[in-house]
């Protein structure tokens, strides 16, 4: 907590906390190959994406046409398991494998969640993919999705460029 409090004073933390969901960081310095464990988790994630047809454009259309429970079941049960896990981590003060305290960062409301959320939803139903499935679709060999991914990068960049002019 102490190191975090100092960081919180700095502008960098403020900006990162507002803009990215990934503000948690370990205060330990590890060599780069420690990151390989995230590749492993990513691989499991990718396998589930394909096996459960989460990356299917058809499944996303069915969700938004209320023709299938599949995606609602997946997102709902994922949230339930995530919620229970976080509850247990907090309740029993479970530490990371390196013995650090697990950090949680509350999100602050801003209008971006509404405007951005609506725009994201439009794109989600068009591509049939949120960012995770884009990476998975490319992995399954639909190489044209690289164009979607580059467009998504362009979208991210354009947001960053006009950020101060957009309502938040």
């Amino acid at each position, binding site marked *: 907590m102490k190191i975090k409090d100092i960081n919180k004073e700095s502008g*960098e933390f403020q*900006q990162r906390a507002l803009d*990215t*969901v*990934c503000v*948690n960081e*370990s205060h330990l310095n590890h060599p780069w190959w420690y990151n390989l464990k*995230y*590749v492993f*988790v*990513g*691989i499991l*994630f*990718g*396998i589930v*994406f394909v*096996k*459960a047809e989460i990356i*299917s*454009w*058809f499944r996303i*259309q069915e969700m*938004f046409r209320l*023709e299938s429970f599949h995606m609602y079941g*997946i997102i709902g049960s994922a949230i339930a*398991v*995530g919620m229970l*896990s976080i509850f*247990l*981590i907090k309740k029993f003060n479970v530490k990371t494998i390196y013995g650090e305290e697990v950090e949680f960062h509350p*999100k602050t*409301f801003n209008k971006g*969640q509404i405007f951005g*959320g609506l725009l*994201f*939803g*439009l*794109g*989600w*139903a*068009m591509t049939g*993919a*949120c*960012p*995770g499935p884009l*990476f998975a679709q490319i*992995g*399954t*060999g639909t190489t*044209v*999705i690289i*164009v*979607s991914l580059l*467009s998504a*990068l362009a979208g*991210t*960049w*354009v947001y*960053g*460029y006009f950020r101060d002019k957009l309502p938040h």
Partner: protein
Amino acid sequence: MNWINQPWPWYVAGPLLGLIVPALLLIGNKTFGISSSLRHVCAACFPANVKFFKYNWKKEIWNLFFVAGVSIGALLTISFIPNAGIVNIHPELASDLTKYGITDYSGLIPSQLFSWDALLTARGIIMIVIGGFLVGFGSRYAGGCTSGHAISGISNLQLPSLIATCCFMIGGFIMTNAILPFILKL
């Protein structure tokens, strides 16, 4: 061992996805989120003096390893344990799509909409290019995507994430039911 070649049901896939939240927290104090990876790539490759991209992206490099894993996992699945047979599609969706000439259900993604050939058609370019742009722009504007807001955020009882998720859904309903029919007609 039949299950390995069948599509997995929601009650298997959903809890497995949910377990990624504690897995990332416990192996390195990381919050599950995908769309930030796009920002880190911008920050690493084209910061162009934009304040939003001037931060130490190297601290977040784990996220790029994670998304690389997602692609590798998908590649491994399609190579070794693909889902057998064609994608099972709701008959009403199939009959609506047939009207627009989308008749190939052999893959998870309709090749008549998403392929290099389709990229040269009006509807293809709209869905691939503009769709992708909205995903990137919208998720960053909202501060997260389905993983960061809907799964991580709501799991941690964050009201802003619930609001964002509702807006994701509203946007999706509008696109699929009100706008997409016009795009598919092109």
